[in-house]
């Protein structure tokens, strides 16, 4: 345990929380249940299909919630709350403009091809529709991505346990990985799916009281709107943004967006939002990412498979209340500084404390400006002048622990990722605290389990069976599925260490996968709905799309960023500087740059696929493509007894619901 416990019990400290016995009990019960579920499922794991694809036997409500949950890793939770604080209600666009339409499209139009074809995975669909090249490209990039995603999840978990409970990073990482290994090895994909559903309920039930209390504390929605109006007028007071915005910037989803990039904190224009995020990125993720599609493909029949994303869309629409609203509440609370609450400062690491403590001691003898400069340089972060001055003045009389606390308090950069935790710590007494924290930990572990189960399927069927060892017995593949699960966990751990040691690693990984994902939907769209798309078209289109992403990134920058990993490095290689980048390629924010990158990558992939397909001959006959392309697949007649269970009807109702939400929060 570190000596960082504040003497006066202040709530703002980013680190350490005290768990009571009841909280540990809840955590242990959760671990017991996930292991128990895994072991209970063991006897149903007879074939490789049972282990890797659940043998297509799961009811729709389970696959629906797992579909949602697989995406709902803790990074999503943490990230959405962070965005809620930083950007306000505009964050809801990720859900209401992005995810919901994409999920509906998947359920109504695309699942028939994934589920109805003989494909056991998304890459296998690509092989059936096109050829091995496209499948290979997709499998390898997906496999690598899942390992990094899993590693990122586990790194975040181990770091959290370390910062929160003082547990050793390595021990936490290995023990949590061992737990995941145990239940996935026993029960396969079904284990992962079942625990994802459990995780879903834990998140909802763990966080709902926190949101309720937060909303009550801040005085209700209308009062929150007023507070956020004041935040928008002066975001710099909370270190949120250096510009000022219209009063409804944090509380109106569309008006600030329509007013232009300078008028909304996200800094995006409406085209980039609708096309880049709403269409390209969202459809690219929800419709083609095997991590989520795998859950739908595990459903027990076609009707259940089609309803899976639609069932998921219902809670998804309402999730902003649970994950985005807390961020907004935090911003409002921080403005009022009620009970001393502030947005959590970026945590200082041991190395930074080691440099800063002597700097504080030495600063006593300096002038206030020099002292401030010296201490700021030592921590490497933006600091608050007044707080540093006060600390330096009193430093001789304070003990080391208090100096450290005050140093942390003096940091003037926000740790947005810490916002949800700060709210949990603020409102949860022992008992509820255990529930909320276990929910958070559950979602981190689910992040690993979900990615590893997607990885082991793609490896076994799309890489191993396809290229390395075809025509072996099913027992062999079942064995391989288990063996690669262990390898997957170990690779995830390696990735976790990689990410924890190199701060840029996360940026680079997410960048590369952004490049790969952006054009993907164009390939699927043309493949599923135009029979004339050829294999050459698909492959070169995909390559062209990825290349366009990379090129666009190398040539564009966003305001506030230097040329380099955030973009524009081609200019510096050419000997130019930031000022030389054309204004067309300078974007108001990271997000804007990202959305435009996606838009261009999609258009490039679409155009190349189209062009090359027209210029090349088809390699597959109409019979071969039956069940894989819209025009060659018999229309599904929905024989549901109740009309409202038909996917198309559900889809329309959901879209309507989404529209209503957009109108309410206009």
């Amino acid at each position: 345990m570190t000596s960082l416990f504040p003497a006066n019990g202040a709530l703002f400290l980013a680190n350490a929380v005290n768990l009571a016995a009841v909280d540990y009990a809840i955590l242990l019960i959760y671990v017991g249940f996930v292991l128990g579920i895994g072991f209970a499922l063991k006897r149903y794991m007879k074939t490789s299909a049972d282990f890797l694809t659940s043998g297509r036997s799961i009811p729709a409500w389970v696959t629906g919630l797992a579909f949602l949950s697989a995406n709902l890793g803790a990074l999503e939770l943490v990230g959405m709350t962070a965005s809620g604080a930083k950007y306000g209600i505009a964050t809801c666009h990720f859900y209401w403009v992005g995810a919901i339409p994409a999920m509906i499209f998947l359920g109504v139009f695309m699942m028939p091809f994934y589920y109805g074809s003989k494909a056991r995975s998304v890459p296998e669909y690509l092989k059936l529709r096109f050829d091995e090249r496209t499948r290979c490209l997709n499998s390898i990039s997906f496999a690598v991505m899942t390992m990094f995603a899993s590693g990122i999840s586990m790194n975040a978990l181990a770091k959290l346990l370390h910062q929160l409970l003082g547990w050793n990073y390595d021990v936490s990482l290995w023990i949590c990985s061992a737990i995941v290994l145990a239940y996935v090895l026993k029960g396969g994909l079904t284990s992962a799916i079942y625990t994802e559903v459990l995780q879903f309920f834990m998140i909802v039930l763990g966080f709902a009281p926190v949101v309720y209390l937060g909303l009550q504390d801040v005085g209700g929605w209308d009062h929150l709107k007023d507070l956020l109006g004041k935040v928008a007028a002066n975001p710099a007071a909370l270190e949120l943004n250096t510009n000022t915005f219209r009063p409804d910037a944090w509380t109106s989803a569309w008006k600030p967006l329509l007013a232009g990039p300078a008028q909304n904190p996200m800094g995006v224009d409406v085209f980039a939002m609708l096309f880049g995020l709403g269409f390209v990125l969202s459809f690219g993720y929800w419709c083609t990412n095997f991590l989520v599609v795998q859950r739908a493909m595990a459903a027990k029949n076609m009707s259940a498979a089609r309803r899976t994303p639609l069932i998921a869309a219902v809670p998804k629409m309402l999730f902003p209340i649970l994950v985005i609203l807390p961020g907004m509440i935090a911003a409002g609370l921080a403005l009022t500084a009620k009970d001393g609450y502030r947005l959590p400062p970026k945590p200082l690491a041991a190395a930074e404390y080691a440099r800063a403590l002597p700097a504080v001691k030495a600063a006593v003898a300096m002038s206030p400006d020099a002292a401030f400069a010296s201490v700021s340089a030592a921590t490497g972060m933006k600091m608050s002048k007044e707080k540093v001055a006060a600390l330096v003045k009193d430093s001789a009389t304070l003990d080391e622990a208090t100096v450290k606390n005050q140093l942390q308090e003096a940091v003037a950069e926000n740790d947005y990722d810490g916002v949800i935790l700060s709210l949990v710590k603020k409102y949860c007494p022992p008992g509820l605290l255990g529930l909320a924290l276990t929910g958070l930990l559950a979602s981190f572990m689910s992040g690993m389990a979900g990615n590893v189960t997607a990885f082991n399927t793609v490896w076994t069927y799309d890489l191993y069976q396809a290229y390395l060892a075809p025509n072996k017995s099913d027992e062999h593949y079942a064995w391989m599925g288990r063996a690669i699960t262990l390898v997957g966990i170990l690779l995830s751990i390696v990735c976790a260490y990689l990410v924890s040691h190199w701060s840029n690693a996360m940026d680079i990984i997410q960048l590369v996968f952004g490049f790969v994902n952006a054009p993907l939907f164009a390939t699927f769209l043309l493949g599923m709905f135009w029979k004339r798309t050829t294999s050459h078209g698909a492959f070169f289109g995909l390559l062209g799309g990825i290349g366009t992403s990379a090129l666009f990134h190398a040539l564009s920058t966003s305001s506030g960023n230097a040329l380099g990993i955030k973009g524009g490095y081609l200019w510096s290689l050419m000997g130019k500087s930031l000022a030389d980048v054309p204004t067309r390629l300078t974007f108001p924010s990271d997000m804007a740059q990202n959305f435009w990158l996606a838009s261009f990558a999609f258009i490039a992939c679409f155009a190349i696929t189209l062009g090359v397909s027209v210029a090349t001959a088809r390699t597959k006959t109409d019979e071969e493509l039956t069940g894989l392309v819209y025009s060659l697949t018999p229309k599904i007649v929905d024989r549901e007894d109740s009309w409202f269970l038909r996917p198309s009807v559900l889809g329309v109702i959901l879209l309507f619901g989404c529209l209503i939400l957009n109108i309410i929060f206009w």
Partner: protein
Amino acid sequence: MGLDLRKPIGFFFLLLGVILVGQGLLTQGDTEMYAKSLHHNINLIWGAVLLVFGLLMLLPAMLCKGGDGK
């Protein structure tokens, strides 16, 4: 698959509900602790909610024994 998920989930939340209700009852009147949760005994209240939720999951599952979990 053979295991009806409603049973473990129902059981889990029933158990958690009992624990939280227990915690709530044990710490009833601890105003300092519950000042955090705006003077609601959130453990008792929410524990009761979890308990009900657990039962809502568990009972249909136990009643339609032999069913395949919908």
